[in-house]
């Protein structure tokens, strides 16, 4: 099967406008007859559900949390990029496009990324009109700051809570539509199966997490906005509830999973303090604007930081990457930190940490300004570690943060299964092998506000409408499948908790398929995963029943999917023997230890098709062609 990305013809800068004109429109009077299910209520899901409802479609939106406002987009701290060029420092659509393609290590689609840069400005306009309290200059105009991977200031922000404010903007837009009766919101409801009828996605089966009821929901199209899968590593910066279940269930129904091995490790997280830990906390990388990253030059130097003289400190990012320095992209900064820790120069308990030092900034700007810029982050750091960053340099270490990989989608954000659209972090499309800071919020909102409302309409208008009811046999089959799985989980009654399986899976994935990957390590983890999965189904202990709120059951279902998905991730990592972006293969590096891409063999999107349980997935390749930019070895030196 050939993967058609349906990229419009014509010059890059005109594709989207041309496509918008060529796409079919739904008669406004008919829109309410079309039903759309949006799974997830984060930036992508909430903005899409609200925008589609405004257009007149009948929308149903689901989230597993108790309110759509809790989706994990809320935790994004730093900001959102847009090619507004307000600071007059040389930004443009072209530059944002180029930075994103380059930042993604030339593993993303030019046309998608260009469109993202094109609509980025509208996203800011939309959010400002909604009342998002962006930071302002004294003249009342919007303020910008710089962020990793860019030499221009194009990041809009609302203190250290940009994700929260953007999500609340989308949540309020969504709430308005719920209040108007245009969106039906189902909270504490988790999608368990995708339903495909005659080759097209026609609905889902979901479990009401409070009553345990498993119900069918039919629609003319399904939108997955279910976020990323970083908790496959157990410890990550994601919320404890983030999971791959919806995306993975769609994959098992025939949707292709693209580039699962492209995972992002964020360089500035608070190091792990022990085995009890349930998640890792991110410190916004905006701190790297004013903080300097260093470690002692000497191996095993256990002196407290203030006793290490300037001459004995190694500002390794500034040393290795003089142009970008502390603002090097995430993958590069993370790997550099890992390397120095592997050299036994790491600091803090276990030696897994590097210093992020604000003392220069404190001297230059004074405590007041530093507090103004980063106050809440620094408070958070102190709460978690018990150390005051105004006195002692912070300790940071990389942690899994974002999934660039996701379900394969074409230019219309539709997967290979007609009717199934995938937006936000859940799709693979825009960030290639590495995402730049402040671009996730941009992509989630661009997809939801400005891309999907057009392309979904096009799909509906160009597909003959054939109503399918929730009593169709395919729904019945999917419901039975979901119930059988729940009952199976409850019937094992073994002696090991789902959490402990998750923990073990995560540790193995982090060790062998984390920041640096080798053939031997990947084979090791690929051998262990099926064993672990078998143990899980034999010995997992899920208490309680399926008829009420049962968090152990929810957890077990998600872990079960991670136990299958992790194999796909590792398989993808094994097959891609090049290093690119967040995917670092030890076998493929330059003499200086930098990632070495292999464009001759790997300039494609790896889209995996489920071949049946127990069989290895089938690889499909979507070749990447570059017209506007010439792939080059990424250099931030």
């Amino acid at each position: 099967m050939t993967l058609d990305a349906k990229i419009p013809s014509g010059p890059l800068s005109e594709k989207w406008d041309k496509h918008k004109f060529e796409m079919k429109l739904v008669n406004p009077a008919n829109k309410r007859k079309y039903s759309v299910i949006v799974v997830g209520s984060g930036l992508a899901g909430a903005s899409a559900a609200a925008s589609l409802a405004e257009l007149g479609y009948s929308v149903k939106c689901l989230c597993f949390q108790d309110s759509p406002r809790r989706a994990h987009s809320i935790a994004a701290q730093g900001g959102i990029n847009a090619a507004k060029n307000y600071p007059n420092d040389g930004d443009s659509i072209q530059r944002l496009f180029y930075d994103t393609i380059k930042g993604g290590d030339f593993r993303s689609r030019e046309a998608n990324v260009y469109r993202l840069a094109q609509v980025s400005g509208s996203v800011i306009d939309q959010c400002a009109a909604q009342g998002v309290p962006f930071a302002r200059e004294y003249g009342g105009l919007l303020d910008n700051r710089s962020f990793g991977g860019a030499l221009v200031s194009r990041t809009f922000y609302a203190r250290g809570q940009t994700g929260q404010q953007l999500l609340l903007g989308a949540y309020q837009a969504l709430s308005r539509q719920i209040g108007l009766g245009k969106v039906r919101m189902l909270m504490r409801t988790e999608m368990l199966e995708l339903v495909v009828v005659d080759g097209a996605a026609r609905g889902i089966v979901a479990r009401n997490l409070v009553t345990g009821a498993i119900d069918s929901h039919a629609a003319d199209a399904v939108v997955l906005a279910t976020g990323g899968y970083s908790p496959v590593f157990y410890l990550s910066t994601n919320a404890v509830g983030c999971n791959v279940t919806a995306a993975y269930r769609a994959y098992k129904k025939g949707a292709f999973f693209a580039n699962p091995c492209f995972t992002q490790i964020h360089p500035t997280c608070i190091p792990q303090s022990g085995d009890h830990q349930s998640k890792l906390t991110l410190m916004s990388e905006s701190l790297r604007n004013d903080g300097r990253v260093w470690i002692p030059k000497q191996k095993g130097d256990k002196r407290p930081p203030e006793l290490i003289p300037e001459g004995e400190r190694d500002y390794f990012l500034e040393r290795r990457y003089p142009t970008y320095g502390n603002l090097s992209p995430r993958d590069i900064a993370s790997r550099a930190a890992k390397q120095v820790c592997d050299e036994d120069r790491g600091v803090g308990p276990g030696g897994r940490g590097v210093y992020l030092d604000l003392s220069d900034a404190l001297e230059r700007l004074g405590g007041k300004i530093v507090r103004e810029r980063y106050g809440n982050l620094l408070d958070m750091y102190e709460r978690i570690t018990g150390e005051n960053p105004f006195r002692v340099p912070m300790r940071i270490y990389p942690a899994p943060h974002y999934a660039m990989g996701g379900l394969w989608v074409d230019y219309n954000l539709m997967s290979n299964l007609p009717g199934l659209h995938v937006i936000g972090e859940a799709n693979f499309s825009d960030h290639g092998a590495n995402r730049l800071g402040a671009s996730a919020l941009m992509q989630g909102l661009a997809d939801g506000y400005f891309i999907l409302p057009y392309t979904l309409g096009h799909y509906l208008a160009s597909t003959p409408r054939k109503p399918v009811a929730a009593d169709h046999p395919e729904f019945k089959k999917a419901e039975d499948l979901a119930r059988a799985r729940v009952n199976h989980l409850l019937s094992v009654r073994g002696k090991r908790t789902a959490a402990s399986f998750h923990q073990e899976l995560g540790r193995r994935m982090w060790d062998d398929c984390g920041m640096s990957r080798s053939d031997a390590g990947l084979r090791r983890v690929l051998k262990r995963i099926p064993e672990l999965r078998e143990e899980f189904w034999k010995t997992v202990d899920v208490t309680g029943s399926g008829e009420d709120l049962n968090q152990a059951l929810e957890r077990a279902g998600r872990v079960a999917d991670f136990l299958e998905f992790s194999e796909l991730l590792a398989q993808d990592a094994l097959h891609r023997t090049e290093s690119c972006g967040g995917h670092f293969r030890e076998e493929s590096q330059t003499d200086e230890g930098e990632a070495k891409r292999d464009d001759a063999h790997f300039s494609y999107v790896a889209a995996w098709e489920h071949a049946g349980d127990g069989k290895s997935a089938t690889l499909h390749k979507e070749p990447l062609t570059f017209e506007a930019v010439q792939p080059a070895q990424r250099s931030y030196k």
Partner: protein
Amino acid sequence: MNLTLNVWRQRNAQDKGHFLEYQAKDIGPDMSFLEMLDQMNEDLIKQGSEPVAFDSDCREGICGMCSLVINGVPHGAQFQSGSAACQLHMRKFKDGDVITIEPWRAKAFPAVKDLVCDRSAFDRIIQAGGYISVNTGGTPDANTIPVPKPAAERAMDAAACIGCGACVAACKNASAMLFVAAKVSHLTTLPQGQVEAKERVQKMVARMDQEGFGHCTNQSECQAVCPKEISVDFIAQMNREYLKSL
């Protein structure tokens, strides 16, 4: 350290509910309060009992999902102010402590199970008017609406609310004034939000009353437990807006 926990157990909304005592053993100072509960739950599953249900998601103090009353105070704010329970660490406790853990209690937040309650009343208040009515697209360039920096800062102070409901839980009248005031003030302080200011405050207050929250008697307990330390000044601002709208 070892702790004794008195935890509220309630099978479902109909069940009466009661306290059960548990022992939490080998708790480290770097654990968060929720990680301490995780460990207790793991032990409970191993013993064949059902773990204690409690809400949490981001575990970094921003999603607003966690909702525990710890020794009579939401989020355990007597131990650490300005944070949610997920950011409270066990170094604030000492060996042998007895800790009572209850859910948010309010008529408008009906019990779901154990420490989990239903806060959809907050969502319905927002649905009633907690927004600026703009559709997607057609908005002017962001810089055509200048916002004075102090107004932007003040709006942000109010908008920082995470919607956890601790204000309701702490209030002796189970009033939602701080939550509603934060949203009213956030939107009214910005020029974009002034167009619908009157309608908004009327609709949101009406919905709040309809949901069965109590009234504000200005004790400021809400501010003291708020993870974002939202000021009761916003309640005065909302009252002002409300009187203006009449």
